[in-house]
């Protein structure tokens, strides 16, 4: 699924974000990515959704070499990747419903096919009352929940989340984590970058720690779903998704 082999990333201005990162994330694994601000977490995620290319080494994502991939292939692969952005990346002129449906709209999926998924995802993140609202009228936490729903609505193969619980209260944070756990159970690969040590501790999921551009595996192998990850979707969401 994801394989880093001595991957380095240096920005054009000279700053080094990643040094000789070697790492394999198996399909269906769930990992946390931790590290201080500026440690390179977002850069690593950007490599994974092809917003950046490694400056050295080899990176394989969903079977494609990120250094040699062509632009038309990038669009195809991004449809298999759901990204939760720290700055939300919502379109202000679209409604909540349209923002969540966007990955399916651009993939030319007919509305009849995705409508129930979008509505259910919005229900899960408790935004059912705001489906016709537009992002400028939402709070930071609500925007983050829209971004999360958008990232997961197509049940992508790979889910990348950059501080997904940064703007939400603990109760919603737990609910969102349960959503990630359900994706993990559906054999989706999940990588969550976060500062929230409490979240990481409660989840029991394996942790990759990034410091000075170097990855340190702290715990676990991310393979089997953690038996006590601390979050559950007890209203049957996961069962329906299966």
């Amino acid at each position: 699924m994801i394989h880093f082999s001595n991957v380095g990333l240096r920005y054009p201005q000279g700053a080094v974000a990643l040094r000789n990162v070697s790492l394999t994330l198996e399909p269906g694994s769930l990992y946390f990515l931790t590290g201080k601000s500026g440690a390179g977490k977002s850069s690593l995620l950007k490599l994974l959704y092809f917003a950046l290319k490694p400056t050295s080494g080899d990176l394989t994502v969903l079977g494609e070499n990120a250094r040699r991939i062509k632009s038309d292939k990038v669009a195809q692969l991004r449809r298999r990747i759901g990204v939760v952005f720290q700055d939300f990346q919502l379109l202000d002129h679209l409604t909540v419903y349209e923002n969540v449906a966007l990955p399916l709209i651009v993939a030319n999926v007919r509305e009849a096919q995705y409508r129930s998924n979008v509505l259910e995802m919005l229900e899960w993140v408790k935004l059912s009352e705001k489906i016709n609202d537009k992002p400028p009228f939402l709070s930071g936490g609500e925007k983050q929940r829209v971004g999360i729903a958008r990232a997961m609505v197509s049940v992508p193969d790979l889910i990348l989340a950059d501080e997904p619980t940064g703007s939400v209260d603990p109760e919603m944070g737990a609910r969102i984590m349960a959503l990630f756990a359900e994706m993990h159970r559906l054999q989706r690969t999940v990588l969550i970058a976060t500062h929230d040590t409490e979240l990481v501790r409660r989840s029991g999921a394996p942790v990759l720690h990034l410091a000075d551009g170097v990855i340190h595996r702290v715990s676990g192998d991310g393979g089997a779903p953690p038996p006590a990850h601390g979050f559950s979707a007890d209203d049957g969401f996961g069962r329906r998704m299966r």
Partner: protein
Amino acid sequence: MRAPIDAPVRVSGRPSGRARGAPALPRDWLSTWLVLLVASAMGFLAALSVAAALGADTLARGLTQDLKSRATVVLPVAERDEETLSRAVEVISQAPGVRSVRPIGGAEQADLLAPWLGEDRELSDLPLPRLIDVVGVSDRSPPIAEIARRLSEAGIEADVDAHGAYVERLEPAARQIRAFAYGALMIVAAAAGLTVALACTAGLTAQARIVDVLKLVGAQDSYISRIFVRRYQWLAFLGSGGGAAVAILALILSGGAGGGQVVLNEELAPLLPNLRPQGDDWLRFAAIPASFAIIATVAARLSVRRTLRRR
């Protein structure tokens, strides 16, 4: 969807009607109005160019048909008596290829000379030649050589003036007018294409964030191109259609230049082409918005693809 959700969904809100047909681009009033106005102006000019080209065509066709089929026989002053005139008419009538022969009377001759001699000038005391109007069969030129030969054999001294020579001079002029009009049309089309391309590039720059988000969620360049192209295609269609409609209305209200009564001197009117649309002309005018939409499509597509490739 790889994992369909088939359980009933409990939601209190419903997506609004507009939400379902999600517009992928926000409304951008400034560029919308700019493109609309420029397309209107271009459509207006295009309609005038088409009218000029069609008018030049009509004029050339009318003049050549009319002049080509006619000749004038001029009896010099020495031969201007009525008897010679009647004999000449008879001789000419018998020539093959002649449809009609008509002596031009004094009043008609006075009308022809009025621009030079004035309206009230008495012509009877002037030594004017007598003129005979000859029309050939089937709109073809009368047999000039044969008429001249027969008149000569009948002992009538006369000059036979074939109008074909004027036609030969008029035809290139009409072709030039037509070429100028179509040239103007090409320039207008090129300007419209450039305007749309520039507007598209500006639109992409202004909406760079939207393009980025679309790409991040998996939109292909062709999808992004399509939504931009569709917008400018529609604006070009509407704008040029409106502009062309205004131009046509103006031509109709002014009576067309050929009508002349409103905008031009009445005496010049018959010499000017009639620019008022008629018959099949409407189809050519109707093609203006469609052509502009096609031009906008090509220009926008090229511009968007080039811009996206650079990103």
